[in-house]
């Protein structure tokens, strides 16, 4: 059951979704992690100018679709839309939390309403690492 409806007010705070990252999630090239990447290996990261390995961007991003699906259900799976920017890297074992607020509602076709949300991901250190806008569709009866 979607949380967001046509009656949800502007300014409504979306339910936060958090997860703990883990370096094991960064083994995107091989399951055994034997190929070193900037996400797993200090030397590979240093050669790219980094102080230490960083989290995979799509793992940080992953908390946003979880939050949006809680809010919109099928109106996210079909009709979900977004634009997000990575402001800075997250550490490989950071706790990341997706948050957001409803910012606008616009009719889309005769039967749907597009609900736009400002979204962001922050770490347990309080840094906003990813920011942007996402929207989903809800039924319109009025």
């Amino acid at each position, binding site marked *: 059951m979607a949380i967001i409806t046509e009656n949800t007010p502007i300014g409504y705070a979306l339910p936060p979704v958090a997860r703990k990252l883990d370096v094991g999630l960064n083994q995107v090239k091989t399951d055994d992690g034997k*190929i070193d*990447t900037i996400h797993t290996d200090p030397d590979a990261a*240093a050669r*790219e100018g*980094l102080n230490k390995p960083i989290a995979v961007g799509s793992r940080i991003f*992953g908390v946003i*679709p979880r939050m949006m699906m809680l809010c919109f259900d099928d109106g996210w*799976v*079909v009709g979900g839309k*977004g634009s997000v920017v990575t402001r800075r890297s997250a550490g490989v074992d950071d706790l990341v939390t997706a948050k957001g607020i409803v910012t606008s509602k616009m009719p889309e076709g005769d039967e749907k309403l597009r609900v736009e949300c400002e979204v962001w991901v922050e770490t347990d250190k309080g840094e906003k690492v990813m920011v942007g806008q996402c929207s989903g569709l809800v039924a319109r009866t009025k």
Partner: protein
Amino acid sequence: MAKPSKVRMAEDATGKRTTYEEIEVGKDLGSFEWTVTEADIERQCLLDEHWHEWFVSDSPWGGAVAPPQIQSRPPRWLLGRTYNIRGVSYKHDFEYLKAIKAGQTLTISGKISDKYVKRNREFMRWDTFAHDEDGELVFYASRVQCMDIIERDAPREGVGVDGGPKPERI
């Protein structure tokens, strides 16, 4: 721990790095077919700790569907077939137009749509499209990659470890 490099990488384990000058705006990145398996869907659920009954059994679209963020991987596969760009992801625009069903084969295609310099770093944008067997658009993604974390006036002469081309798997 090794100190962060002051030079950009000219090559890595996957070959010569693509330079900003070599990026051709408008270039067709070709296409490939991607069959989305139940195993792909399960791995995406595991990676994102994102579980829902629609991802494992039935859904309003008939059968199991993928978490829509599964579409974040194919754009990198597509780019890696033409260019070797490591860097870091900067911007991601996307739209989910149809549910992605288990067992469905999608045709992934795309093109280079922009390149620019910002804060002394080089960026490139590419657009990716996924069409189903009926030729209908299933998802669209437009991504911007910062080509190097190190600023662009640093020489490109080092040898990196990690490369741009990605294994084509979730």
